């Protein structure tokens, strides 16, 4: 496991948390001009690289977090049944033929929606966690995950796809879906981390497919057609 090398000071923490909260509440992210200049091919590669980096980061984070939760959550063969409440977390699981047949737009949108929601859940976690080391790791991970969401958004914009709308209606009050007891709360956390990990594995495959189907040359033509 990686060692924590230094912590953020109190002031920068405050600013950081504010930024995280502010970004989480935006209904839609603005289209980024910089990614259009890069070309979607390169952006897809960068997004792919980001998923790999995040997957690596998550391994360390999950190890630390599950140890914090304690047994049985940190046991390697812990295999609980999926409770109904866990269905709120977006699942990467998909029928094989359906996954193959996804359009580029649908593929990107699924990733965008999933990570946006996972990010929000993670931020809730961040606010509740006990140790400073965990808060530091979670904050770092949230920042990287935010980067991934932005990156996916950038790819979608450069390909001319509309960004998926944010969650309908006002955000639920903090206590709305709270677990009734401590054990179930830990189960929620366990499944969140599991789905996050699975999504990162899936995204690597999603972006592999996109890489093959969207070479950089295509995007240049598209930009010309739009009169840039």
């Amino acid at each position: 496991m990686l060692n924590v090398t230094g912590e953020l000071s109190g002031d920068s923490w405050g600013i950081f948390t504010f930024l995280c909260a502010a970004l989480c509440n935006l209904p839609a992210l603005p289209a980024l001009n910089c990614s259009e200049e890069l070309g979607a091919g390169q952006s897809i590669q960068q997004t792919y690289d980001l998923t790999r980096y995040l997957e690596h980061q998550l391994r360390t984070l999950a190890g630390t977090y599950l140890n914090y939760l304690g047994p049985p959550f940190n046991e390697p063969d812990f295999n609980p049944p999926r409770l109904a409440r866990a269905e709120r977390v977006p699942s990467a699981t998909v029928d094989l033929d359906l996954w193959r047949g996804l359009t580029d737009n649908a593929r990107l949108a699924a990733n965008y929606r999933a990570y946006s929601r996972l990010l929000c859940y993670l931020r809730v976690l961040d606010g509740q966690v006990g140790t400073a080391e965990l808060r530091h790791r979670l904050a770092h991970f949230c920042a990287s995950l935010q980067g991934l969401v932005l990156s996916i958004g950038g790819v979608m914009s450069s390909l001319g796809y509309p960004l998926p709308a944010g969650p309908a209606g006002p955000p639920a009050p903090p206590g709305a879906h709270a677990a009734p007891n401590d054990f179930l709360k830990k189960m929620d956390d366990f499944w969140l981390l599991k789905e996050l990990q699975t999504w990162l594995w899936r995204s690597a495959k999603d972006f592999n497919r996109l890489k093959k189907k969207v070479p950089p040359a295509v995007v240049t033509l598209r930009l010309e057609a739009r009169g840039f």
Partner: protein
Amino acid sequence: MSPVDLHPKDSHPQYERVGADVTMKCGSMDWDAAVTWTVNGTDIDESHLNGSYLILKNVNLSQSGQYSCYEGSSWHLKYQTYLRVGTPPKEPVLMCRSNNYPKGFYCSWHLPTPTYIPNTFNISVIHGTKDMVCEKDAMPKNRCHIRYLQLFSTVKYKVTLTVTNALGKNFTTLTFDEFAIVKPDPPESVVAKPVPNNPRRLEVSWQNPSSWPDPESFPLKFFLRYRPLILDTWQHVELSDGTSHTITDAYAGKEYIIQVAAKDNDIGTWSDWSVAVHATPWTEEPKHLTTEAQITETTSASTSSFMAPPTTKICDKGAVVGSGAVAVCWTAGLVMAAYSVLFI
């Protein structure tokens, strides 16, 4: 009363454990009846009898066979059984692997020690709350495969293998994630060739394993290892795409052994190493061939270079294979030694 009620051939064998004591009764004959027992047609000595009962103490495997009991005078067959000595099964060894991701996975199993009697294997696969059917393969036996219905599942698969025979049963369980068991087959058709006019290069190419169904969406990355036969340490190259590579730091004139392994780009583990291929880099045609009559065999670029560095031997026993080239090498070595002495 009909003399024989039993069928002469008993279709159900009698199974007994190694080391057990076995008592066989001669059908419905009284204890004090005069009988003769045979095993596989050979008479059994009376010392093994207790009245008309046959006593076998601490049976071993060699005592398996057809036991028959005949009435003393009439030689009517009164009882027959086929005895099979064996052991109850030990815990079986189970392995599951996905070499054809994302199509599915297969499980294969075996017993660590033989039981010497017939065994039945039963395999069950549970995915969350769902029971899945693992279809048995015709060949090889002791193998079954499953098709994935869903991809990117967070729920683990639980595979239980139960082995049963007449003397007992045993079982083992494996629990794993979809991603954890991904391990491709080794790359196929590995070919290594020298590069003309390049004494330090070798061109290696290979193909994706044919069992990997979709290298487009699930690309493989590769690991190449190579070493000259005379050294023990390998050199390694990891390649994230492409199915060929040029080695540029080969020692001139040395025969190399080369292997390739494959792995899904993102998940699972490395395959086993491919079949090894041998190749020697291109060498110039040797110029000092004339003096010794034996050095006429220059079959291909694979013969040793005569410009070998002084610290290494020209030929090693293992380096050149077949066709009398070994004799050529040793003679060449002697000639070189002779020449170098002359020119010092």
